[in-house]
């Protein structure tokens, strides 16, 4: 490992170091607030270390990792989400019965896992990144261990994740058997001369898709999503919804680009059917759901379907679309869950749709922020979600995938219904004047609200004037 390698890997190293450091701080019996603040600082540090990445050409740390612009972009998103989740977590866990300190360690570890995914170019790093993320998540999901839902969600996630990991591994083994290497580029090279995919490889890929599909929660591997989203503590849910999906999408994209899998029609057919099924099933499942967390879980199924739609053409525009949509989706979903976190009480998370009734009259700002997020998820103009969806449609129509684009439209329309349901719930009822509640943590509350407002501004900024982000996305595009 040369010095350059260190610089290139500095975000990963910083995250690793942070987790260890926090462990030490816990051992020093620092208070929750101090640990929170230091972890925040460390996150910021990790985030800013990205700015020092050598941005000339992809930096390979053979054979496992590669740090290129795309990786930096995805890592940026991931660390940023970690940062936001970190900020939002304070009040949430401060109010809960559980000692919140290990939480920060696990948060760093999960972020690390996702970053490894984003940079990996080898099955081993893929697997390890995924497992760091997953194992960390087991504990995070079941973090409030006295609560039945948390534990239930934890064990469901654990068994299913291990199960799907086995599929992933078996698939990798088959591919390895076929190609003799676990590095993406070599796999790609060995496939290069072949006009069609060898069956062993295809089988392996299929089994890998099961594993990846599970992580992405696409149909038919989606059924855990709602239970886990509901059971997990809200900040963790937002983490699952963003970080774990983002990392996996990144590595999937990289894998397909490197092996140039877009040439192989069976593969694309598989992805297409998954995407279509996800868009329809996800949106339908959320239709009359009463639990907002579950609604967002089901909607995430659909959104991952949209992302797959963007990915399928495999063109330059589709990579841009994936990046853009990912960014928009991250910001949006963080905002949505952020509101949920803020509104959560000591006993209950704000997950019942009824708890949003007349929110607009009680907390106009929060309601507006939440509405903006939901509208962005629904893909309504003026929000980043719209530009993202537009990007996806453009990418898929450019390649002539009318059918999928049409399904996407249908899905969005069904989706509208449940987003609107939440919104109209917030505006329904004629609540009295906003009452001043005594907040137990005014400073952190304020900070959280400011962060969410900033995120909302981003949502609207990217919705109204997306040029900047588009440029950014293009700059940090994955090279083909």
């Amino acid at each position, binding site marked *: 490992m040369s010095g350059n390698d260190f610089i290139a890997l500095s975000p990963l190293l910083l995250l690793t170091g942070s987790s260890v450091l926090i462990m030490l701080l816990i051992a020093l019996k620092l208070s929750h607030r101090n640990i929170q603040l230091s972890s925040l600082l460390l996150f910021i540090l990790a985030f800013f270390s990205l700015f020092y990445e050598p941005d000339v050409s992809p930096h390979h740390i053979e054979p496992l990792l590669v740090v290129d612009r795309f990786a930096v972009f995805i890592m940026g998103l991931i660390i940023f989400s970690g940062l936001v989740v970190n900020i939002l977590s304070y009040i949430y866990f401060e109010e809960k*019965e559980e000692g919140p300190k290990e939480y920060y360690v*696990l948060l760093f570890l999960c972020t690390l896992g996702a970053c490894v995914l984003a940079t990996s170019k080898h099955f081993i790093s893929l697997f390890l990144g995924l497992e760091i993320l997953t194992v960390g998540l087991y504990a995070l999901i079941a973090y409030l261990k*006295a609560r039945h839902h948390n534990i239930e969600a934890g064990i469901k996630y654990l068994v299913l994740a291990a199960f799907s990991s086995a599929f992933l591994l078996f698939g990798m083994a088959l591919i390895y058997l076929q190609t003799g290497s676990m590095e993406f580029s070599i796999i790609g090279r060995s496939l290069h001369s072949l006009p069609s995919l060898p069956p062993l490889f295809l089988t392996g890929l299929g089994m890998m898709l099961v594993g990846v599909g599970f992580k992405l929660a696409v149909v038919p591997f989606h059924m855990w999503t709602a239970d886990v989203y509901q059971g997990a503590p809200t900040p963790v849910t937002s983490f699952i919804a963003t970080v774990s999906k983002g990392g996996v999408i990144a590595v999937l994209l990289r894998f397909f680009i490197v092996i140039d899998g877009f040439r192989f029609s069976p593969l694309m057919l598989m992805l297409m059917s998954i995407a279509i099924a996800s868009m329809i099933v996800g949106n339908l499942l959320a239709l009359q759901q009463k639990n907002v967390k579950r609604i967002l879980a089901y909607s995430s199924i659909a959104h991952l379907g949209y992302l797959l739609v963007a990915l399928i053409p495999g063109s330059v525009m589709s990579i841009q679309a994936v990046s853009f949509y990912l960014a928009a989706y991250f910001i949006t979903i963080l905002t949505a869950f952020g509101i949920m976190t803020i509104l959560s009480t000591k006993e209950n998370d704000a997950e019942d749709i009824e708890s949003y009734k007349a929110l607009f009259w009680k907390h106009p700002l929060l309601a507006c922020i939440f509405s903006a997020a939901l509208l962005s998820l629904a893909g309504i103009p003026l929000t980043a979600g719209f530009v993202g969806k537009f990007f996806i449609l453009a990418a898929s129509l450019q390649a002539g995938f009318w059918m999928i684009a049409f399904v996407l439209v249908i899905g969005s329309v069904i989706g509208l219904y449940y987003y609107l349901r939440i919104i109209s719930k917030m505006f329904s009822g004629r609540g009295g004047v906003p009452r001043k509640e005594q907040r137990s943590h005014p400073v952190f509350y304020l900070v959280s609200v400011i962060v969410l407002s900033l995120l909302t501004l981003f949502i609207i900024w990217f919705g109204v004037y997306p040029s900047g982000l588009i440029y950014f996305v293009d700059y940090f595009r994955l090279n083909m």
Partner: protein
Amino acid sequence: MKIHQLTYIAYCLKMDIFFYITAFVTLFSTIMVITRHNPVHALLYLVISLLSLSVIFFLLGAPFVALLEIIIYAGAIMVLFIFVIMLLNLGKETAAQEKAWLKPKIWIGPVILSTILLAELVYLITMAQPPSYTLQTVDSKAVAISLFGPYLIGVELAAMLLMAGVVGTAHIGQQKKTVLHRFLKEEEPS
């Protein structure tokens, strides 16, 4: 040294027959694992399965892994299981519960599903027809060089993986007397 001798003996004893016997033992004991009602029995069958698998690893020329299989899997991990089973005193009750549960009506569906999957997998694997090749022993040295050479980062990541496991287990396993809010229970440190 011993390992080499063992493989040599195996070689002398017509390796393929040896392989098939071991494979049969593995399969048989695995089937027993998933059909036994008593957890302890199942666990013991699993140990047998793991042991016979390690023999297969030997046969495949991977002695290092074979040993790890015995030491870590059959040794450490299984012990963890046994420990938990003992801790929770899962014995007859579980056995009865499983016995009541495992009726053909229940398992026929999953078995059919599994069979379908198996058939597909077998078909796809055999269809592949990989070229003939020679099995070579990849000894522990090669593995070690590779582990601490190119895959060093992987090892470090594995360390973080374990750390995640440890922290998680520690947090979840931690016992608390009450589930009340810790601020309200100041006098009882957790």
